[in-house]
């Protein structure tokens, strides 16, 4: 799958620029009709929780952005289940329908991609 890009999201959304930049990259790659798979691991899963309202920080909600990605050709979202469980979260807490994977599933997704972009 040489033409597949895995975007590896491991950071919480508002403490650094990583999540916002990851989102921008996902949009950019999607527009070029390259197959993008987004994998959320560790604090990356916090980018997907419902009820984010960073307006008090003068920032836009990144959680609102992910559900609109299918309009840009990006619809493969995978969440590392142990990372979710460790944070007391379940799929019901997330803004999108994501596939859950275990350690081996996450590794297989990364191995299936031609390129891994980390954020």
């Amino acid at each position, binding site marked *: 799958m040489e033409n597949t890009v895995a975007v590896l999201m491991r950071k919480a959304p508002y403490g650094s620029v990583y999540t916002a930049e990851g989102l921008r990259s996902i949009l950019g790659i999607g527009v070029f009709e390259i197959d993008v798979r987004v994998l959320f*691991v560790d604090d990356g899963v916090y980018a997907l929780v419902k009820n984010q309202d960073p307006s008090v920080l003068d920032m836009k909600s990144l959680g609102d952005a992910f559900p609109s990605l299918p309009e840009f050709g990006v619809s493969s979202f995978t969440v590392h289940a142990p990372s979710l469980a460790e944070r007391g979260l379940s799929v019901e807490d997330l803004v999108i329908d994501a596939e859950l994977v275990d*350690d081996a599933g996450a590794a297989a997704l990364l191995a299936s991609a031609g390129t891994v972009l980390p954020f």
Partner: protein
Amino acid sequence: MLYTINKSPLMFGNLKSALRIAPEGEPVLLYEDGVYAAAHGAATEALVADALAKHPIFALKADLEARGITRLIDGIRVVDYDGFVALVEEHPVVPWL
């Protein structure tokens, strides 16, 4: 896949997180502050020693020398820049930033 780690294992969970997901046998490369994981006597030594039973672990020579890390955990393989390039040519990279 070559899992690459550039953060100190004592300050960040990057090493532990990568080792959880990296399948047995996949190589791991320590560079920048990631090389502190190669240091003998650090609190993370047991984690790294366990990982060495499952993965080849490489550490970048220039980053070890820059930090004065001279006593390495047995089994750590030191690579120079050419060795780094060879690893990257040989394996697709999973940068665990």
